[in-house]
């Protein structure tokens, strides 16, 4: 009798202990790179007044509009709702700070070779990841999945006033969705 009571109380304690763990592990929301771009942000807004269809390719106004469009895209703002969000996102890592062969800070970008072969991704497509625990054997352009808490990093810059910063809890090698 006493034994079973003891076991019951152990089970109850285990359930009580495990519930918060399960809850803590749950809320990393799988996030795509598109959701880092604000939904209400329309890159074509300031070009609505221009009737681009009526212009020829060589029209200086069209060329001017194109270059301005590039600038606008470059200065794409960040999504405010991401501030404090617990997310899980996959991308390629570029180490910034190292401790021996371990990485403590890196940038996460959505596509391979970003920033080297093409114009760099806009400010809202780069996440500055900071890890309290040094991460083992990470090489430039390793594909990783990170889970952590997103924050906005506000500072004046020609490319917008804020960027993303992620306080990372877990970094794992990227796996294809079908588990291969």
């Amino acid at each position, binding site marked *: 009798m006493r034994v079973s009571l003891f076991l019951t109380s152990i089970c109850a304690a285990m359930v009580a202990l495990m519930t918060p763990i399960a809850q803590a592990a749950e809320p990393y929301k799988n996030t795509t790179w598109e959701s880092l771009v604000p939904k209400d942000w329309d890159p074509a807004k300031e070009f609505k007044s221009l009737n681009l269809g009526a212009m020829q390719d060589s029209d200086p106004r069209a060329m001017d509009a194109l270059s301005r469009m590039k600038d606008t895209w*470059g200065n794409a703002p960040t999504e405010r709702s991401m501030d404090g969000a617990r997310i899980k996102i996959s991308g390629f890592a*570029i*180490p*910034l*700070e*190292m*401790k*021996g*062969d371990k*990485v*403590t*800070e*890196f*940038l996460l*970008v959505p596509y391979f070779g*970003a*920033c080297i072969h093409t*114009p*760099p*991704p806009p*400010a809202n497509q*780069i*996440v*500055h990841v900071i890890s309290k625990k040094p991460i083992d054997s990470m*090489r*430039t352009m390793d594909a990783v999945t990170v889970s952590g808490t997103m924050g906005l*990093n506000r*500072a*004046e*810059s*020609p*490319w917008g006033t804020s*960027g*993303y*910063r992620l306080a990372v809890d877990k970094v794992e090698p990227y796996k294809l969705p079908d588990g291969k």
Partner: protein
Amino acid sequence: MSPAPLLRLAARSAWARRLTLGVTLVAIMLSTALLLCVERVRTDARQSFTQSVSGVDLVVGARTGSVQLMLYAVFHAGAASNNIDWKSFEILATHPAVEWALPLSLGDSHRGFAVLGTTPEYFTHFSYGEHQTLAFRAGAPFANVFDTVIGSEAAAKLSYKIGDKITLSHGIGSANLLEHGDKPFQVVGILEPTGTPVDRTIHVSLEAITALHLDWFAGAPVKGVAIPQDLVSKFDLKPKEITAALVGLKRRSDVFRMQRFVNEFRGEPLLGVLPGVALDELWQTIGLVERTLFAVSVLVIIVGLAGLVATMLASLNERRRELAILRALGAGPADIFLMLAAEGLLVTTLGATLGAAMLTLISAIFAPWLLEHLGVLLVPRVLSIAELYLLGGVIITGMLASLVPGWRAWRMSLADGLTPRS
């Protein structure tokens, strides 16, 4: 037989053969010390390598290879292919995304130590390791043109103190053929050791670099022209060129755009590299040597353990009678097997532990000598986790290897031991 008396028996038997086993023990001790030493130097080298710069977002220089730029701008090794115009640096430094920019002017040397021309902000913004800034052991940053701040290793090797007057020479290298002897510098600050190239650097102001070359023309001092030190301040000492620049951004995620800005700079061809990426590239090249060294030391361990197995196998012959008597007294084949395995384990564990102790002792004794003569900063410390794993690996391998003589002894029949053919 129960294990405890059996182990006592094994220990006594091993003591009886202490000479041969002792030599094997020394072999295992030395090979373990070598393995741990290689591992330690490997991690230390990597550590001091990646610790050389921190908190810097971009290293900017004239267009060259990214590794070469890192080598001369951060490690002061090799020479720059070209300089950057001061105006380009000013544009870079005032860019809205830039929080701070440090100009670096290299190329002069003092008794084999690199002379770095920079601004006093260098001492507040430059950081190494994990965002550690430079600390002064004595003195303060330079304030006047002919002031200099020296790294800890340079100070120790040349035994300079605050207030000493030193002479700088032109060009890299320790042969002071052409000295700027007419313009001596005064040591105003000595830095704390960092384990980075900063320790081997003499820091002066950018104006000092210009002043040094005032009466120089086309790479040589102009004959008959000598500008005395007190008149130097009458000249415009504003730098015209610098060698490289370190840039810190307000927001680190802007680094690719800033890099692109630098690489597409209109005024002159510039190159901006992310130190983390360039160090990674550089290390991957050096990594081959490091892995080869490690493989060699693993082989040495295998040789040491093979020696152990050979000694134990050879001892089986001389222990024929001993083992046969034990068998006759009631020890089963499994007991004999256990005795031999225990002997192997004892020797490897003792050898590995002594090896680790030897390394700790040696590194504690020789650390000052190594720092002074080879510039290697060995931090005396207890074993790291990775080293404990290696040690465990050695012991487990040794135990597995000693199963071979154990198995042989198991297979030896009682009659075989009691009726020697010889």
